[in-house]
């Protein structure tokens, strides 16, 4: 590793370094300078500096995005800097920015510095999760996100629900982390690599025969369980409603949007880059169903859509409703993940469709959480009854909520409609000759027809029923503006999706970007060595390996 390369790496990592510095800086600032100030004053000081810092990071990413044409890979994929990744990082940072604006001056706790610091660390985790293509880094980044979010969920120490939600989130999360680590260790044990690209290499062609399939299968299954928890897919979703309901609304927004984007990107990468050879097939069940992750993901997708949509019907709390709806939406996205590798070759639009949808989904949800926060903090709660007659009390916020709900339900001309169309079209496209995935798509469309019922139920509360309390509900101009912008984006991305689609398709045109190692892998001869050496002896020594 020579110095020029270190500089290059540092150059690539500039925004992450700034972000990390910002997180520590906020903590230190709070401890050193503002300890004695009033909570409100600290909120103002720290909130504004976080906003300025995040805007700065956002612009560094934007510069990187415009500047780069190549993909840079650091250390076997521990950090991959590509335009696509940068786009997601911009999205995550932007969402964090909105989260800070939404939660500005909402007095959840007196620990202001910790609140912002943890939030920034969680964003750092998301950013690293998006950029890593290495099992270890994926795990570390995921844990960074999770650990900070556990604390943030329970941040409202006085409220029982908050603590309960945090505890549930923590216990489920701990289990799932164990599952994930166990699964990743088996994948490593079976293939001998932690880098996704090298894992894919070890599974290619005739190499595949040398891999212990059972071990790999168990590894993939456990990994899917672990990641299924992060994306709140059924049946690993049980923490979500409680965590969403209990957590301070900005934190819930963060769990529902930023962390979802990062987790979905990680899942897509793991399956698309690392394990395409183990996809199997979920086409035209049961005749063309081959074992592999595609079938498992299809089952998880069906469960998520069913449980998410039907459980959402029963809800009377808006945040719980959004939690179950996010389970359902995870199901829709998984439909396209099934399609990624459905017929042996990567489906051309599956990955862009997933990317488009998670961005749309995150935008819509952060908007919805913003409205919930604005209304909930004034009306005294997040139950349906607090939203009754809101169209009279707060026409602007109600209109925005209507837009977000209809977008989630998939009504044109809002972005959610095109997002769903894109997802489902990509899924059918995976096997266009025999329409092999049409069964799954048909199920998803039927389920999204069910979803209209509960989204309309909420809007009915706001628009149809008369208000019990005639006082108007208003929110601050910064929040109004940012929510309005989100609403406008949801509308525009629905009416003119072509530009965004074009961008994603171009960025994704080459899913295996050229390996341009910023740091050349130092032990050059090592790459060919482990492959032949380990393979014959794999079943016996690899089994104890993960236990260590």
């Amino acid at each position, binding site marked *: 590793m020579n110095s020029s390369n270190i500089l290059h790496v540092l150059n690539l990592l500039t925004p992450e370094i700034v972000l990390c510095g910002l997180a520590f800086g906020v903590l230190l600032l709070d401890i050193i300078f503002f300890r004695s100030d009033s909570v409100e004053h600290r909120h103002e000081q720290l909130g504004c500096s976080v906003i300025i810092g995040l805007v700065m990071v956002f612009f560094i990413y934007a510069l990187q995005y415009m500047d780069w044409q190549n993909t840079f890979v650091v250390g076997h994929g521990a950090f991959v800097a590509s335009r696509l990744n940068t786009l997601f990082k911009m999205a995550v940072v932007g969402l964090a920015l909105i989260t800070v604006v939404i939660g500005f001056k909402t007095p959840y706790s007196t620990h202001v510095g910790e609140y912002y610091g943890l939030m920034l660390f969680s964003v750092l985790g998301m950013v690293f999760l998006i950029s890593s293509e290495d099992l270890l880094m994926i795990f570390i980044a995921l844990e960074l996100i999770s650990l900070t979010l556990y604390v943030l969920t329970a941040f409202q120490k006085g409220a029982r629900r908050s603590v309960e939600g945090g505890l549930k989130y923590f216990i489920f999360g701990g289990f799932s982390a164990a599952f994930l680590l166990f699964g990743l260790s088996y994948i490593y044990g079976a293939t001998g690599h932690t880098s996704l690209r090298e894992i894919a290499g070890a599974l290619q062609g005739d190499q595949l025969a040398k891999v212990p399939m059972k071990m790999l299968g168990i590894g993939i299954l456990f990994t899917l369980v672990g990641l299924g928890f992060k994306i709140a897919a059924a049946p690993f979703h049980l923490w979500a409603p409680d965590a969403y309901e209990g957590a301070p609304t900005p934190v819930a927004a963060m769990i529902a949007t930023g962390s979802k984007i990062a987790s979905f990107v990680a899942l897509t990468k793991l399956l698309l880059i690392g394990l395409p050879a183990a996809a199997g097939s979920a086409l035209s069940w049961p005749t063309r169903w081959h074992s592999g992750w595609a079938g498992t993901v299809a089952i998880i997708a069906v469960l998520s859509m069913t449980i998410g949509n039907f459980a959402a019907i029963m809800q009377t709390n808006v945040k719980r409703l959004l939690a179950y709806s996010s389970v359902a939406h995870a199901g829709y996205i998984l439909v396209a993940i099934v399609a990624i590798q459905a017929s042996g070759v990567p489906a051309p*639009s599956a990955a862009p469709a997933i990317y488009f949808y998670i961005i749309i989904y995150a935008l819509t949800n952060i908007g919805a959480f913003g409205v919930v926060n604005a209304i909930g903090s004034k009306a005294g709660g997040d139950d349906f009854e607090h939203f009754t007659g809101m*169209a009279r009390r707060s026409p602007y916020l109600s209109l925005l909520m209507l837009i977000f709900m*209809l977008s989630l339900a998939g*009504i*044109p*001309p809002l972005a959610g*409609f*095109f997002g769903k*169309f894109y997802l*489902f*079209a990509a899924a*059918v*496209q995976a096997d*266009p000759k025999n*329409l092999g995935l*049409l069964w799954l*798509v*048909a199920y998803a*469309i*039927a389920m*999204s*027809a069910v979803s*209209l*019922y509960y989204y*309309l139920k909420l*809007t*009915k509360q706001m*628009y*149809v029923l008369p208000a019990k309390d005639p006082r108007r509900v208003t929110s601050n101009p910064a929040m109004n503006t940012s929510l309005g912008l989100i609403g406008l984006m949801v509308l525009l991305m629905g009416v003119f*999706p*072509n530009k965004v*689609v*074009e961008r994603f*398709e171009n960025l994704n045109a080459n899913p295996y970007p050229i390996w341009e190692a910023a740091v050349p892998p130092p032990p050059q001869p090592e790459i060919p060595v482990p492959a032949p050496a380990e393979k014959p002896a794999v079943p016996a020594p690899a089994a104890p390996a993960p236990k260590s």
Partner: protein
Amino acid sequence: MLTWTIWVSFIGAGVIMLMKPEKKDLIRWIALVVASVGLLIGLFCFFTYDLGGSNYQFGNGDGVAWIPQFGIHFKVGVDGISLPLVLLTGIIAFTGVLYSWNIEERLNEFFGFFFVLIGGVYGVFQARDLFLLFVFYEIAIVPKYFIIAIWGSTRKEYGAMKLVLYSFAGSALVFIGALALYYTADLPGGKTFDLDALASANFPVSFQLWALPLVFVGFAVLAGMWPFHTWAPTGHVAAPTAASMLLAGVVMKLGAYGCLRVAIMLFPSGMTANVTLPLWFPAGMSGLVIHHFWSSVFAIIATINIVYGAMVALVQRDFKFVIGYSSVSHMGFVLLGLATLDLTGLKGSVMQMFSHGVVAGLLFAVVGRMVYERTHTRELSELGGLIKAMPFVGGVFIIGAFASMGLPGFSGFFAELLVLIGTWRAFPWLLLPIGIGIIITVAYTLRTIHKAFFGDRRNDMTKWDHLAPVTIQEKVASLMLVAILVIVGLYPPILLNMVDKSSDQFIKHHVKPSISGNLARQ
């Protein structure tokens, strides 16, 4: 230029939505202006449609690329089938605004939702790209919920939710079918949603046999096809007057139009192909061969619509439910005309769409606005003798009811006659039940006129002495609708010429090529 009907409605909706609800008169007048702009553009195009020219007119040629990655175009245009429906939308929107003149509550939102719905309907009738058509179709779904749930009456939230979920479930079927056909179509020009290109795709018959019912039923849910019609009466009854006019007058036609423009146009062989049912017969017979299977199935269902709707209408006690079920019955004629796949039947079907649109608009206006809002009851047993108190209303209703019965001299007569001729050619064995249905139609119509407007002498008729007088807006709107019924009834060619031309084109280009050799019809 016709596209402006869509944009004016959407822009109008936005402007009205943003206005202060207190400025009621201003909102009403703006709404009237927006509706009349749509109507005038429709009228202008209707009278300047060139019968000798190309089939599709007032469009934008091959369209503008909208989402090129999926071959989705913004491609619009109308032929002689859709132009009358565009005009019908204008008429119903205009009269709907006039009949809504008395709404006081949340007026800006009412007309906002109203014009979003109208804009969506205009869009469906003009779209020539399947994706575009679907987008407009879905845009038209949600406003109905709010209009009914907020401004409606009897069990409004139930009726609204049922209607919206039925429509959305139907559109989900269409969505599945659209995705399947998009990837199945093997076209030289690449994947596209362009309806004309898709129509030339020659889908395999085995594909058409399952895709056709999917798409057809998906659209027909909105056309009130039995057994998916139950949303219609409850929805119509719950809706405020302008919305029931729109629902029965225009929105149900969206469904029928979708059946014609998408299902039949893309899958004609699916309609006409023979299906062998795997039934076991003694010695040597492999199964039961049904000729032109789906066409027959839909014709039978349409007949059930006609007879069943009429029978249920006969026993209703609620005035509005009678009209609601009569809509179900009359939409049966539309579906029957489509199912015959015969030129005359198709023409009759389109004529019936227009005619029933006007009739249903008129009847719902009489029941919902002119009678119910004055008497505050719709029970037929409590009404009676209204003709003395409201001679104008009675007269209008009787004319509308006669038109709905299919009396000569009104538009309905000619439409139903054409459908019956088409049926005679395609399914002569269906004429007997249809005849019975027509007799029942006469029975329930006369019963309703009698009970509501004349009634039992024992009834106390003095209770109607103090009803509010009929307003000028109601008179203008009613006379307008009656005039249209009579004009089209006395001089059908005003409509029939263009319907004839485009139906002929439709049969020649889309239905005939698939029938040759397949169907032994004449």
